[in-house]
């Protein structure tokens, strides 16, 4: 299945968000996630099904003003 991760098309075999994050190399990284513009809390990533073409955002702390 193909999904869009942080604006780029990626191929994944994962069916759920938590598995996709593992597959994409995020491991235990401190990140926050959104799918199709809506926040997905860490606690419900495992139950969040992904579909072809879903837009996934994976954000982490960064410098800011």
């Amino acid at each position, binding site marked *: 299945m193909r999904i869009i991760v*942080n*604006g780029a098309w990626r191929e994944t075999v994962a069916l759920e968000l938590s598995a996709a*994050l593992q597959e*994409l*190399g*995020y491991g235990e*990284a*401190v*990140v*926050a*996630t*959104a799918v199709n*513009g*809506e*926040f997905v*809390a*860490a606690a419900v990533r495992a139950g969040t099904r992904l579909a072809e073409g879903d837009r996934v*955002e*994976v*954000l*982490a*702390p*960064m*410098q*800011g*003003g």
Partner: protein
Amino acid sequence: MLELYGTSLRSRLLLGTARFPSPAVLTAAVRAARAEVVTVALRRESGGERAGQGFWSIIRELGVRVLPNTAGCHSVREAVSTAHMAREVFATAWIKLEVVGEEDTLQPDVFGLTEAARILCADGFEVFPYTTEDLVVAERLLAAGCRVLMPWGAPIGSGRGLNNLFGLTALRAHFPAVPLIIDAGIGVPSHAARALELGFDAVLINTAIAQAGDPAQMAAAFAQAVEAGRAARLAGPIEPRDLAAPSTPVIGTAFRR
């Protein structure tokens, strides 16, 4: 003491963490500023590089409170989603709410701002809205549930200081009990001192320190200016006048008939 959403702070200088030449310089500047609050953001993280993880460990080692922002958000929906993501990652209800309305000035979209503030306050966030000096917008933000306001001094990164002194003075006079933090546009320590002299409760500085020749030294200079401005405000500045008033007593002046 400065009180923001029930948190008491000694320092009235909040520091942005962007645009520093290196993490070491950022760390030195935070210490020199004696800042207790720093602003942070969220950006896309690559699963390979994980650049954000290193930054986050630096901030945690500093032991300061973080104020996450929604910088770069252009819509209510983006800002609200970003706020939720920030609350989870940074484990704080504080959010510096920015909704960009215009690219040249990065002027806040005050319509989107008030709407996003209403949604987030109702959801338990403690919202620090980046706004203009507009009194009606300020009223709306307070009605939405905001208990702190962050009016701009001048456009972000412009270094122009307090662009609309009259408007900012009116804002201060109109909301005497609301913590007001001048955010954006401060260029040099005298601008910050002026803000505190006018009765603003604090300033948030980023570019003026991060892009200075010696950021740590500039951070120390800002810390002194903020303390001086606050002390002057408490001491009660004199009113300006148009004509001279002799400071030396006139009575007993020699050589007079």
